[in-house]
């Protein structure tokens, strides 16, 4: 697709680790190596203690929907409408993603679980309703 709005994401120095893990089907959360605080979106410095040292924690991939909307104007014109969700992971951090295979209308606090799917050539964390 040549449309300017369909650019493939470009990982930056600060979040390459997230997409490297995603490529292996793993959902990870950045963790301060000094004070242990989890943070997302990724950032080079810990906003709690100022440390530049960090590692990652493996997420269970389970969480609940904090908020959701129906996206009627996807950023690729040929895309089907999708459900955008704000997920609060069990570990406490939040991330924005999409709800896939939603057999029922989403609702707030709905339990969800991660499911990796290809998106424009990159394995990407989406979520489905938890069984």
């Amino acid at each position: 697709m040549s449309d300017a709005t369909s650019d493939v994401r470009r990982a930056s120095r600060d979040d390459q680790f997230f997409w490297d893990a995603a490529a292996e089907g793993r959902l990870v959360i950045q963790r301060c190596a000094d004070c242990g605080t989890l943070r997302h979106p990724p950032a080079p410095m810990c906003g709690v203690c100022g440390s530049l040292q960090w590692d990652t924690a493996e997420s269970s991939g389970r969480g609940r929907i904090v908020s959701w909307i129906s996206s009627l104007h996807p950023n690729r014109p040929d895309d089907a409408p999708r459900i955008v969700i704000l997920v609060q992971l069990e570990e406490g951090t939040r991330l924005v993603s999409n709800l896939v295979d939603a057999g029922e209308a989403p609702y707030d606090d709905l339990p969800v679980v991660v499911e990796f799917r290809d998106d424009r050539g990159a394995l990407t964390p989406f979520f489905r309703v938890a069984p």
Partner: protein
Amino acid sequence: MTGTIVAGIGATEFSKESGRSEMQLAAEASRAAILDAGLTPRDIDGMVTFTVDANDEQELMRNLGAGPVTWWSRAPGGGTGACAAMQQAVAAVAAGLADNVLVYRAFNERSGYRYGQPRGTAGPPPLDWYRNFGIDTPAKMYALWFRRYMHAFGATNEDFGRYTVSARRYAATNPKAWFHDRPITLDDHQASRWIVEPVLRLYDCCQESDGGVALVVTRADRAGDVDAPVAIRAVADARHADASITANYYYDDLATYPEAAQCAQLLFARSGLTVADIDVAEVYENFSPLVFLVLEAYGFCGPGEAIGFIADGNLDIDGALPTNTHGGLLGEAYIHGINSIQEGVRQVRGTAVNQVADAEHCLVSSLNSGLILGRFG
């Protein structure tokens, strides 16, 4: 007291196709504000706008024949920068770094670059975390935040529509408003198409507008030389580390607006005023639900109570808190909220078309920043 006043205001017409350059709009609005202040362009020694403005300060200065100018700054943000830019001007004057500061904003955001249209993944890195999943317009960025308010308090899109009806009623009697003479009913609102289901319909969204607005901030002790001085009683700006770029998804409680609450606290502490002293409010609303969150953050009503507060007609001209008396950004125009500051000045001067009787204090809120205007003297 800040020791500063708004000495002058100026604006172009608000349209969907200005037919001239953004620089021309900036120059027209600025010159009008300078003359309204009883000054000449050579008296301007400070210039402030906020980011996402294509008009270069030096070039605007050349157009106006302004200066020499000794103070420049830009507050960060789109709408959140409106009152924040006023704070830059107030700070410069209070610090003695400038005497007459021009605050300006002008653009062709309908006929030129359309701020509200979908964007790709290019942009500041944090936005990639949203755009890749379909959050590619301001409407969707904000709706994901507003949705939680609906869940927490049972607010419906129809509740939001009651604000829109109020704003459009004010716009209908404001000849400068794009929606002049075009009021709507709640049925009209509910018949407008979804922009972001289940949060925002078309009539919940601010306009895309062409136009410019400018104000001149000066020292209070120069008020004698000004036709209609308006005191800046307090100005404040609050930004928190747990927000992100136009995506406040990380607050502990998403059904609140912590930055606006802190801004309110600062404004009331700095002015010595309380919510009871506010006679009229001009509240930035890129989308109608924001008014609900802001009214609650400022303490005009409790959590979740804005739904009833608005339904009961409190925003009307004879209500407890007449709000967005120019028609707001939904009804008048979307000049990133700086037109709402201008309306606040008119209310305190007593020259607004939808004038609130005996308006002494006006609150202007623009997302994370805000100010309180008051009668001078």
